[in-house]
């Protein structure tokens, strides 16, 4: 194994960081948080840079980057608390289309995504917060050449704004994925913890779509699970980036903030918190990169690796949000300091697509099964 980025990957990391430093400074996240701006202009900038096409296959007019490269982009996106539909479109919608649709259908559906003309998201969870396909109870029934859908989907990322929503429903006993235009569903947003990451509850009751919007053939449970491994790894990568930013802010602050005549970083109580944050971030970092690598190589460990990455990122955010805010002292408790922009991104990363605890238990069950085998 060679567990370090190649020169090309390091170069990509530098380039992505430079672009986001310029295009997604804290002022952007702050303007979105203050409700003075939405993410539309930023998204158009990314479309201009061909970022939506980056990880899509060449058959769909994508650039065919691998998952390690995508993880680099996602981490930087979290590090900048970048807003917009990149995560939902590229790491949720696109993988589910690729897994659930037949090859020809997938290429046809993903080409407009690659071109930046279409944004998309997925609707799987129904309120349990597990994203477990087995728990889907929404239905579809055939009516002439149409499908009529019933049910309610929760925590749909960008559910109120996405052009297309890939919805998991049961049709004639099988779990299937149906493509629904965003404009055809009723979507309700709450008040988001991180205004750059917006979820909606969508109500499908009576939504009618042409049957050609049904993806692939046969039961889609495995397709959904595989696509979710990508989505979960993506959330972990974004969370990792947000944690890194919190850490960078606090590590610098501890060197500058003078109390009792010395920098607070000279106190062991502060040093040990910083060392723990660093440990948890590095632990999450290698597990996120490992998950990306197993996705890139479609390795059998990808299920385990995605859950480990999500759980480790969750543990890192817990440490970084808790100790980061504590070490920042009063200034971190204000709206005007940038810290909260990244605290929010990190915390949201933990609370959707399965908590750290859920993923840890899954990791344990997988290991017990493989030990018994």
């Amino acid at each position, binding site marked *: 194994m060679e567990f370090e980025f190649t020169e090309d990957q390091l170069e990509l990391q530098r380039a992505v960081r430079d672009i986001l430093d310029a295009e997604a400074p804290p002022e952007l996240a702050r303007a979105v948080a203050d409700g003075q701006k939405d993410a539309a202009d930023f998204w158009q900038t990314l479309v201009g840079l061909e970022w939506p096409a980056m990880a899509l296959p060449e058959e769909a007019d994508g650039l065919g980057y691998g998952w390690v490269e995508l993880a680099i982009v996602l981490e930087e996106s979290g590090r900048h608390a970048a807003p917009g539909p990149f995560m939902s479109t590229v790491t949720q919608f696109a993988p589910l289309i690729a897994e659930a649709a037949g090859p020809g259908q997938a290429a046809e559906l993903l080409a407009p995504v690659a071109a930046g003309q279409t944004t998309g998201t997925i609707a799987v969870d129904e309120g349990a917060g597990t994203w477990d396909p087995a728990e889907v109870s929404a239905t579809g029934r055939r009516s002439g050449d149409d499908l009529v859908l019933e049910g309610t989907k929760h925590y749909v990322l960008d559910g109120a704004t996405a052009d297309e929503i890939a919805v998991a429903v049961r049709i004639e006993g099988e779990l299937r994925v149906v493509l629904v235009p965003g404009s055809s569903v009723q979507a309700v947003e709450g008040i988001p913890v991180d205004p750059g990451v917006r979820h909606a509850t969508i109500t499908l009751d009576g939504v009618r779509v042409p049957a050609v919007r049904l993806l692939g053939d046969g039961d889609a449970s495995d397709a959904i699970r595989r696509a979710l491994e990508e989505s979960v790894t993506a959330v972990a990568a974004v969370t990792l980036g947000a944690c890194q930013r919190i850490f960078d802010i606090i590590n610098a602050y501890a060197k500058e903030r003078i109390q009792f005549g010395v920098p607070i970083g000279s106190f062991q109580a502060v040093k040990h918190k910083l060392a723990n944050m660093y440990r948890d971030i*590095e632990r999450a970092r290698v597990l996120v990169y490992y998950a990306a690598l197993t996705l890139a190589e479609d390795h059998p460990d990808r299920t385990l690796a995605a*859950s480990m990455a999500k759980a480790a990122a969750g543990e890192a955010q817990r440490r970084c949000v808790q100790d980061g805010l504590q070490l920042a002292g009063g200034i971190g408790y204000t709206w005007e300091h940038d810290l909260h922009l990244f605290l929010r991104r990190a915390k949201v990363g933990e609370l959707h697509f399965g908590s750290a605890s859920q993923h840890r238990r899954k990791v344990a069950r997988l290991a017990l099964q493989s030990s018994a085998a």
Partner: protein
Amino acid sequence: MRLTYTSEVEAFRAEFSAWLDANLPDPASTTVRPRSSGDIPAWAREYQRRMFDDGWLVPGYPPEFGGRNASLYEQAVYWEELGRRRVTQSFNPQGLGIVSASIITFGTEEQKHRWAVPIMRAERTAALGMSEPGAGSDLAGLSTRAVLDGDRFIVNGQKVWTSGAHHADVLLAFVRTDPDVPKHKGISALIIETDTPGLERRPFQDITARQPDFNEVFFDDVEVPAENLVGELNDGWRVCTGSLAHEREMLWILWSQGLDQMLDAMLSQLNDGAGAGAADDPVVLDGLGSSIMDSWSLRLLGQRQLARSQRGLHVADQSLLKLLGSEAQQKLALLMLESLGPAALDRTVPPGAQSPYESDRSALSWADRYWFTFAGTISGGTSEIHRNIIAERVLGQPRG
């Protein structure tokens, strides 16, 4: 970034694996067990000598010193093979890994052949005299005194925690040779034969109440030939930190393998019904998941360090790996104790806890295993010291 080793590295693994198949002693011949980390039974001396002679003892060294100039990745798969088969590299690990390594790095040619080679070939065993009653975390504050008197040093003072000293033939001891300069600048490293008059060793038991490994070592006007000085006079701190670097360079592999062995044991015992249904307890599963992540992250961080070393980059994660590895073992042992509940009150060693090629010290009940993990979080720099090191040397925080 990729998941597999190159075919050259895999070929190296296959060659070593074939050598082990042909040369590992018959388990029936391993019934005489090492009494401490300073004692190697005859069958294991013979085996270690064969490893040296065939260039498999320290693969990164040249053939003259028991190696074959192996690359870092080749060394990594060497450790993987030993770990997979649960074969210890040497029953005198500090003799091979620190004492002989320090002499190879800092000693004269004459010292290498006179002291290091016999230790590597298991003809003699060695112990490491570092800590003192008054010098633990503040190791450089050591006060065992050595005064140069013509062609010999006269040594007076005391060492403690000296593993295996009661069975070792020689000590590599760090002593104060100049008390009038800053503490790091007045230390020297001496090789001291343990049968020298005036040297007394008192073994003592550790918290797990097994055969003693630790010793107090007392020096009362012990005469040491001046030629036994390793490195320059008063330059012993460099030898000391160099020897710790030897200890830490590939140490993550041992942390990782130790953790994996504990994890494998826990998984199979839980699957066999240990802890009366603990395998279905969400709290146990939650903790177990975290320990599995510790194990993977330790291995991956170690692999990252390896990749960076291979590229000639500065590596700075030894403290992180030590901290993570030692605390992960403790966390897992504690979890298993709590999962077992009253079943953990019995200190009987579970069957299959030990391979014939490992020291008996690795065969422990879960209760003793938990105590033993504190050896990890205390020795080689306490967890607190390593947190300071990370904050200061990796994160750039000011010294307190």
